[in-house]
């Protein structure tokens, strides 16, 4: 069984409310019950309620697999980068250091790396991953490209990310506002209390439009 090719995973941090339903639901997944493979990051709680859920981005050319000395990390033909294979993994942590998104973790007690496998037990039989099913804000969305285009006209999926000289294409897409200047998030109540609002301290805008010029999912 494989994940259907037309179903994709989309993350929209603009929608995230930090409730951690994804984190709690992930630990209910039958392949790694009791452990959550998803991280919920507060960007800077002192300054904002902005949170970002971090799942494995399922890279086309996974850096974690490339640096694995034991060849324990496999990407299946449907594009899912699987957790480390038990007989091979030596828990060296190379993948943890190398992943540009900070996803894999080594579980010392079990001497193995585990990470998000897009709920392979569910997604490989056509079901949605647990986190995207429960997410109350649908910041985590699992569906077709047509669905996301129809449901989210204000943003667009991007799946190419530049880290220094490295450009990474991923199977998981991030939703970027089409007009990031138009709706700047509020971070400080005092800004909203003024008759003439100050320039906001934080402006979440892309570094430049270029890296996303040739977007494809």
């Amino acid at each position: 069984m494989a994940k259907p090719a037309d179903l994709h995973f989309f993350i929209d941090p603009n929608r995230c409310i930090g409730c951690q339903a994804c984190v709690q639901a992930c630990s209910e997944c039958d392949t790694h019950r009791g452990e959550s493979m998803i991280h919920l990051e507060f960007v800077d709680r002192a300054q904002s309620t902005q949170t970002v859920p971090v799942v494995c981005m399922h890279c086309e050319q996974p850096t974690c697999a490339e640096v694995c000395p034991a060849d324990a990390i496999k990407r299946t033909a449907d594009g899912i980068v699987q957790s480390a294979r038990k007989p091979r993994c030596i828990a060296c942590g190379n993948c943890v250091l190398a992943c540009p998104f900070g996803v894999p973790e080594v579980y010392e007690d079990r001497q193995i790396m585990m990470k998000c496998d897009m709920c392979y037990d569910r997604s490989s039989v056509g079901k949605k991953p647990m986190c995207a099913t429960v997410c109350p804000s649908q910041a985590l969305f699992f569906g077709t490209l047509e669905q996301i285009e129809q449901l989210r006209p204000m943003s667009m999926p991007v799946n190419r990310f530049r880290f220094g000289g490295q450009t990474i294409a991923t199977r998981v897409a991030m939703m970027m506002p089409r007009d990031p200047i138009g709706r700047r998030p509020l971070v400080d109540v005092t800004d909203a209390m003024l008759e003439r609002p100050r320039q906001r301290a934080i402006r979440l805008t892309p570094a430049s439009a270029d890296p996303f010029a040739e977007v494809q999912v």
Partner: protein
Amino acid sequence: MATLPVDELKIIERYGPHLSGMTGVRLSTSAEPEQLVKTHCCFCGQQCGVQLKVRDNQVIGFEPWEEFPFNRGMLCPKGVKRYLQGAHPDRLTTALRRDSGSPYGFSPLAYDEAIARVAGEIARIQSASGHAAFGVLSGASLTTEKTYLMGKFARVCLRTPYIDYNGRLCMVSAGAANKKAFGIDRTTNPWSDMVGTDVIWVAGSNVAECSPITTNYLWQAREQGAKIIVQDPRITPVARTCDLYLPVKPGRDAALFAGVLNLMIEQGWIDREFIETTTVGFEAVADYCRQWTLPRTADVTGVPERALRQAAEWWGTAKTSFLFHARGIEHHSNGVQNALGTINLVLATGRIGRPKSGYGTITGQANGQGGREHGQKCDQLPGWRDIANPDHRRHIAAIWGIEEKDLPGPGVDAYELFRKIDAGEIKGLLSICFNPKVSLPDNTFITRCLEKLEFFVAIDFFLNETARHADIVLPGSLQEEDEGTVTQVEGRVIKINRAVDPPGEARQDWRIIQDLARALGRPHGFAFSSPREIFEELRRASKGGVADYSGITYEKIETQMGVFWPCPSEDPESGRPVDHAGTPRLFERGCYNPVAKGTGPFYFPDGKARFNVAEYRPAVDDVSDEYPLFLTTGRVVSQFLSGTQTRRIAPLVKQYPEPRIEMHPRLAERLRIADGDWTTAETRRGAITLKAMVVTTIRPDTIFIPYHWAGPKSANQLTVAAQDPISKIPQYKVCGCRVRKADGPPAYAAQREPQQ
């Protein structure tokens, strides 16, 4: 005397809250469930559909229920981990009696003996001091069947007027405002009507944490062009990216609504035709609002003129809209006026009673809607009938098989009930589904009242903080151990299905109540053999009332995945039997209701909606030189109400272990407090020491403390027992306080685990 039998820490040592985590079969990746039970979450008023995995009479996990139309599989963290409340080490599996000779304060008691003791004490108190010397507190997390039975039990069996419920802390301001303006008390439109609107106004509702599933409706509306207005003293997760944020000072909401409406009237952004043909009372409201000029409104509310102007323009010129509010504007001594202020904004635009134009109030508890309709409120009879109305009394007395004259009259609200205990008028109390020692304001007073009771019996599944004062505790049932209906936020009646049986001597609550009625020698009317039988009587009792459930059956609920009331069994116009599908949307043009009888869409004899002057009044115990900061209280997403259940679920406690005092860095700097410092907040009622959480997302003149914790961590040690004069809701959302850096950690830090 109901003082604690032994030191509280000893009670905690035995009865918790302890944590239940994922262990044993709940950690197994291979244990297949024997069955999946389609039911709903036990917590908030959204009532998300969920499937419980059951094996060996234990709930071992959950599976999303993606077909249920309201949440389509979505759940918040509480819904995900709710199953861990079952098979819990703290679970009461026998009756308990207070026993100061026992090291932990209580000893087990055989169930039948416990029932006999309770009945004996009730009879003793009532024969010595009259029927009204015994009171009942009930709750809105119970199924509608149970709430119906509680109301009937108090009036018919105990013959006391003194029953009220914890919806008094929750839905009563909204309910009273709806009654005054519409003549019916229900959200007007299904949530799906939000998507496709021009503008949505969120007034005092931390949607992301208190009703998370509503978030996707909001975001989906925005994707399709809706502008989102959020009114809150804090930048809640939903306010962070809203289109217009109104950072209102706590307690100033009615002024804000009046100022915005005044501007809309000045600009002509109102629907004159709708106002003239379908409403009454507009001129008085317009007269009142005239004093709320833009500069004055900005000055009083703390919201800048530009934002007020923007709100008036967006709201005034929209073609479609949704406005909803929650406790943020309702938990005030001016709560009904605040809610009426929002309704005036809705009526002035005429955007009600059609698709994509609605008004709603978010229910807090599981059955926040159904629990306020069928007679556990002190002034109410089933079918949203009025206990002071002779016709209503006759109808219900006939259903219950008693003389109308034997039906007690109106009682008093839950807080007043405690004042009557304090005054010695009420000497005995039965409590179910209510934890007032944590949840009522100024709870030091509540503790003193509990200590004055001659006899106190609590029905519960865990020994909550209030039940620690009980003489007898009867072991009740968890939501998943019984069946019945609840009515969720949209007015949709849904079905809770039993997944497991109560353990040990624990029983379904309705059986316990009936056992008590039998032991009291008054079994007449308490011989139901199932929740279904109770529901069948409730259908008849509600027939012809405003909250008409007579056309709803368990089967129809299952087939349709919920039925919106009113759902009559007979066509109200012709009187002929009808298979009614329910009423998802209220007040549609041409609709018929039993009060207006065709004269118009609203539930008054002339069919017209009522404008009500929604006056701003300063909060009781407002900020002052002595107490210069606003204290406001509320929820966090991982905890629920007084925490009886959620403070016992390990992953939820881990997510937000203990309450903190939220404050703005400007305030923190002035007080020389850093994030994480032990900090003392003090009001006229008491003081609390918690760690500070320094964030820019709250007004610098306001602090916030979540209220789910007990004892020395309880925010309600600080809150004021001021109540709205109409709804009697307490003013949880504002009072004056002062804050200082604490000298060191409080004593409890070394004695209690985070959840205790």
